[in-house]
């Protein structure tokens, strides 16, 4: 046991010594990402781009330490504590569990935390204090309008979501509230785990929904390919909520670009690092722009004629 302790201590000492060797002026940024998945990765890459857009240079003005928790909250906690112990100048947290963990670990030293990919910062209690960032709230009305234009006769929209994901729950509430304005009824079905998605999907297909709208629900997005396989067989179009989903086969989406969201976050972070602003004084930002993405291949397969009004402004996401 003593040997193990000695090895552990020695290893940590070396690490810390290496950490101390950096120059004083270089700011340390710790990026804590909840897990690897296309949208979150886009956020991170956008964030790094945003820092450079603001004129900061990596290794000169700042260094980045990147960690991801593999979707494990306990690891997210330890990552945040590691950043705090190493006295980073700023923590960037991608997705809610990482942000909560970062904010808790930063409490003591009052390290500024900047988050991204959080739908409802108010609900997550991240709207005040030395913390700010960007929200990835879905443009629900734009999506409803898109579906209405693509399918003028559609009546019901099926939505699958996970009951334990707050982002999804609040999106469902908004869908149900706004759907009647566009002449839709919503058939939402909640699941508690990824393995239930297929069962729930069968049940919604059996209810003859006219189309599906997909959220940024982690569980559902994780098995989206197999969902699309089934819906294609049943000839029901699925609308996505961001570009990555359209790439893998959703017909279309009114969605935000996570790279841009990250970029916006990076620019906010640059202001904090330069000392131009304090996280505690900055309101969180929502991306106001959204884009229409379309996958012509999927549309053709389902026999949907894309109206000119949409084809003109949409970005093609199908593989060239």
């Amino acid at each position, binding site marked *: *046991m003593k040997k*193990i302790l000695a090895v*552990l201590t020695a*290893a*940590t*000492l070396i*690490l*810390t010594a290496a*950490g*101390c060797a950096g120059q004083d002026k270089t700011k340390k940024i710790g990026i804590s*990402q909840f897990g*690897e998945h296309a949208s979150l990765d886009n956020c991170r890459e956008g964030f790094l781009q945003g820092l450079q857009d603001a004129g900061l240079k990596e290794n000169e003005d700042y260094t980045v*330490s*990147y*960690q*991801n*928790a*593999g979707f*494990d*909250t*306990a*690891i997210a*906690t*330890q*990552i945040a*504590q*590691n950043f*705090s*112990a*190493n*006295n980073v100048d700023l923590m960037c947290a991608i997705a*809610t*569990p990482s942000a*909560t*963990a970062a*904010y*808790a*670990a930063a*409490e*003591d030293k009052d390290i500024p935390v900047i988050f991204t990919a959080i739908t409802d910062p108010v*609900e*997550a*209690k*991240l709207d005040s*204090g030395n913390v700010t960032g960007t929200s990835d709230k879905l443009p629900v009305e734009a999506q409803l309008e898109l579906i209405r234009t693509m399918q003028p006769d559609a009546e019901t929209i099926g939505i699958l979501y996970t*009951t*334990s994901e*707050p982002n999804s*729950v609040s999106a469902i509430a908004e869908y149900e509230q706004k759907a009647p304005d566009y002449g839709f009824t919503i058939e939402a079905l909640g699941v*508690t785990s990824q393995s239930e998605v297929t069962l729930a999907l069968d049940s919604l297909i059996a209810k003859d929904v006219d189309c599906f709208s997909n959220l940024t629900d982690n569980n559902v997005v994780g098995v989206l390919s197999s969902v699309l396989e089934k819906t294609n067989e049943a000839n029901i179009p699925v609308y996505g909520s961001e570009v990555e989903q359209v790439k893998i086969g959703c017909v279309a989406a009114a969605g935000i670009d996570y790279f841009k969201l990250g970029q916006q976050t990076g620019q906010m972070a640059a202001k904090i690092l330069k000392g131009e602003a304090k996280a505690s004084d900055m309101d969180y930002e929502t991306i106001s722009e959204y884009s229409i993405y379309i996958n012509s291949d999927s549309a053709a397969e389902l026999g949907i004629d894309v109206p000119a009004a949409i084809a003109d402004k949409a970005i093609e996401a199908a593989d060239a």
Partner: protein
Amino acid sequence: MNNLLDLLISTLTQGLVYALLSYGVYITYKILDFPDLTVDGSFPLGAAVTAVMMTSGFNAWLTLPASLLAGALAGLITGIIHVRFKVRDLLAGIITMTALFSINLQIAGSNLIVDRNTATIFTSPVVEKILGSTSLITRKLVVSLIIVLLAKVVLDLYFKTKSGLLLRAVGDNSVLVTSLAKDKGTVKIIGLVISNALVALSGSIVCHEQRAFSSTMGTGQVVFGLATVIIGATLFQKFDIIKGTTAALIGSIAYKAVMQLAISLGLPANLLKLITAVLFLAILIFGNYQKKNAGRIIQKGSSHA
């Protein structure tokens, strides 16, 4: 060197907070020989109860007995399903765990965050008065250390009582318990109640520490608990005097230290779990090697691991 100290304090605190869960798993797995999966549900249960009470303005300290009680109830249910309805041990735990997932969401509504203005057990006036101007991480360490040691002492004392001895007898030699004209079912239920009460307490303290409840925070906690108990037992198999609770406590700290080491080394994020698995394997092999070196014969025969 402050960095290192901070990191050690934080890691030690994590190990301590989760050690309560390890105590719980120690009771079911090591003592009762009962693989209890209720843990994945009773851990977030403690956090859910805590988060709801905190956000509705209850005193932070009241959440601890409330979580203990909630966890005890969860253990009671698993116990009754297993003992009275004769459902197999694994399945009984699975049933309660599955039900708790929904129940936790019912209790907390959804994922719940406790804002910074609400006093937790670490920032409560009492603690501030006693520990004064120490840093928050130090306070977290001191408070969790006190709770964990208190729980350990109470447990160790309990194991020496008649009820505690019966508990240990059920796992080792259940025929003996029956021959003493005691109902081994009741003893098992008591063990499950105590175990899950401790697990929920652990969840409660994690909630204080993180200011958050998330419905998925229980996923994989059983595996964590089993790993810590086995690591603890392996590290200390040479020392007969070391109590099981101490071994579980050290196991928990070792686990969190290994995780933190993997993070600190800047290992590729996606390989984190694989590397952790390799490190644990190394610890276990090291332990077995030590045992062989000492030329000891395993006397207990069928070891649980």
